[in-house]
């Protein structure tokens, strides 16, 4: 009953959603239209939605003009996936430590992790390059994964910590009484129970790594076959003449896998974030 809407409320809600989605999706409509147009009539003056000679040709030709496109997508998935997995390996124990233990320097360390958020990767790029070089990591997947991991850790810890705080302490105490070691408790009890929260962090991390792995990849990697999608996409417009239609087609295609992933996991995200988000 409380969720029963009157007709004008429906109208308002859908109208509101429409306005929101227009704002969110208009650029994608634009991108889609561009992807359908031939290169020499991309932009018409005055503005028109439908112009002559629209076709899906770009969706075919893009695979030829950037032959490694599929490879870049796979790389992106691989790099984002690795960042996520490695990130979680670092985030989960750290978030657990912050949520459960009192120790010297706790506040300081938490602040320090937050402040990693404040350092933008672009500024650190040169010293970071030296680091990667001295570790001999250049031109490998690791050179893209490692900085990705480092920069997702702080946010991950912050999000997950607030989730873990809500897991009843008794669960651990019970396991402790039952003789489980503390690492065993983390692995067998905490992680399974915190799975929704972990999923949220994983997905946020994955998307961040998928969409924003440009700078590190570009700077630390010189091997074309290892490049992720954003760098690959640059190949469409790093040219004398930008192949906008194919670039847009490729970008739209590049979003789809992550969207699918999200479709499957969105219930998880919402449920998980809930418990992680609201501090009580």
């Amino acid at each position: 009953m409380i969720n029963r809407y009157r007709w004008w409320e429906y109208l308002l809600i859908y109208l509101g959603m429409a306005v929101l989605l227009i704002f969110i999706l208009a650029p994608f409509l634009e991108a889609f239209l561009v992807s359908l147009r031939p290169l020499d009539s991309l932009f018409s003056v005055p503005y028109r939605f439908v112009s002559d000679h629209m076709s899906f040709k770009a969706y075919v030709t893009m695979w030829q003009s950037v032959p490694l496109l599929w490879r870049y997508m796979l790389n992106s998935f691989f790099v984002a996936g690795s960042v996520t997995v490695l990130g979680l390996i670092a985030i989960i124990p750290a978030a657990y430590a912050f949520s459960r233990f009192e120790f010297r320097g706790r506040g300081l360390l938490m602040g320090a992790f937050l402040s990693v958020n404040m350092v933008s990767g672009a500024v650190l790029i040169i010293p970071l390059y030296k680091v990667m070089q001295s570790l001999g990591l250049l031109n490998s997947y690791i050179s893209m994964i490692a900085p990705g991991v480092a920069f997702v850790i702080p946010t991950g810890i912050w999000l997950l910590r607030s989730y873990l705080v809500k897991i009843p302490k008794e669960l651990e105490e019970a396991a402790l009484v039952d003789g489980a070691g503390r690492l065993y408790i983390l692995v067998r009890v905490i992680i399974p129970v915190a799975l929704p929260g972990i999923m949220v962090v994983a997905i946020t991390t994955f998307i961040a790594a998928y969409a924003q792995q440009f700078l590190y990849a570009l700077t630390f990697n010189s091997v074309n076959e290892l490049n992720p999608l954003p760098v690959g996409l640059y190949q469409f417009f790093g040219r004398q003449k930008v192949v906008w239609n194919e670039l847009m087609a490729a970008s739209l295609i590049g979003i789809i896998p992550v969207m699918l992933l999200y479709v499957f996991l969105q219930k998880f995200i919402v449920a998980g974030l809930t418990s992680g988000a609201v501090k009580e």
Partner: protein
Amino acid sequence: AETLHMIMCGDDTTPGIPVQQGLISDWEKQNPDFKVEVEFVPWGQCQEKSMTLAAAGNPAALSYMGSRTLKQLAKNGLIIPMDLTDEEKASYAAPILGTVTWDGKIWGLPRAFSTKALFYNKKLFKEAGLDPEKGPQTFDELLADAKVITEKTDAAGYAMAGASFDNSMHQFLNLVYSNGGQVIDADGNIDFDSANNVQTMELVKNLVPYAEPGPVAYNRGKLETLMGEEKAAMMIDGHWLYDRVPADVDMGVVPVPAGPMGKHSSLLITDSLAVFKGSGQEDAAMSLAKFLTSPDHQMAYDIAEGYTPIRGGQKVDELLAKDPSWKPFIDIIPAGGPEPFVTDYVSMQDSINEALQGVILGEVDPKEAIETAAENLEDAQ
């Protein structure tokens, strides 16, 4: 074989790349100790990457660089000068060599070269009642034609770039050189605050009403779109504009109009191959660079890519015969001026663009804009 790391800007799909690749194979055959790894880095990130690698002490052996960066690299001892014989030097037109020379040494071998001229839309000229076969030759004619077109047609008279991008400054410098102005004198001192330049800036100011609305939002690329849609009638650009507008747009080309205090000129821009210090393969890199830019090889590459040929010669004549539209771009070379060679290129770009934007937005008058820019340019030295 040892790997030799070479950074190229752009991507590997342009027509010149197979040509270059063939040449590299040839070179590798002559130098079996080396295997050349070419890394293609997108424009816009390319120089940053080469410089980052160099600053971090792990430079590529050979890098494709905008020549404007060479002075800064050279001053900081990151690149080594090219040991060209006099004969080799003589194969370049003097102004071209000017784009890579500092302190008497040559710091890079020109690889890509462009000159500019004024394109105008014949159809719009006709529509406005102007003679479609006679493009503007002077600042005054430019202004007058722009005015007429703006008033008589739907299109803007002049396509003006004012965005905070390097090519906004380039567009402006074409006019500066054509009015006898300069940014830097022969001794390397800033010479921007001159009557010539104030006059050129006046032209900009006067052109604003006849330019497309909001020039500050436009860089060269977006202006090319306007030209293609016939929404602007005149634009200073490189020869490539022909490829970037639909075939049915009928364009004429004249040299950049001359100002009252100068004569037709053009900004000469080159990109070069630079050999970095510290790769341990300097000699090989030098050898490869020379091999790739030797007259015949370079010409083949220029033709394939559709760049303005760096050197003259028989091939150029053939090109002109086949495509006369090249003529204004090639003829202007001797009268052209190199891109100013400063240490802090970005600072120069910012100063000049800020002046331009100030004038376009009507925030400062031309004289003041030029004066302020000249002061700021001292920083760029």
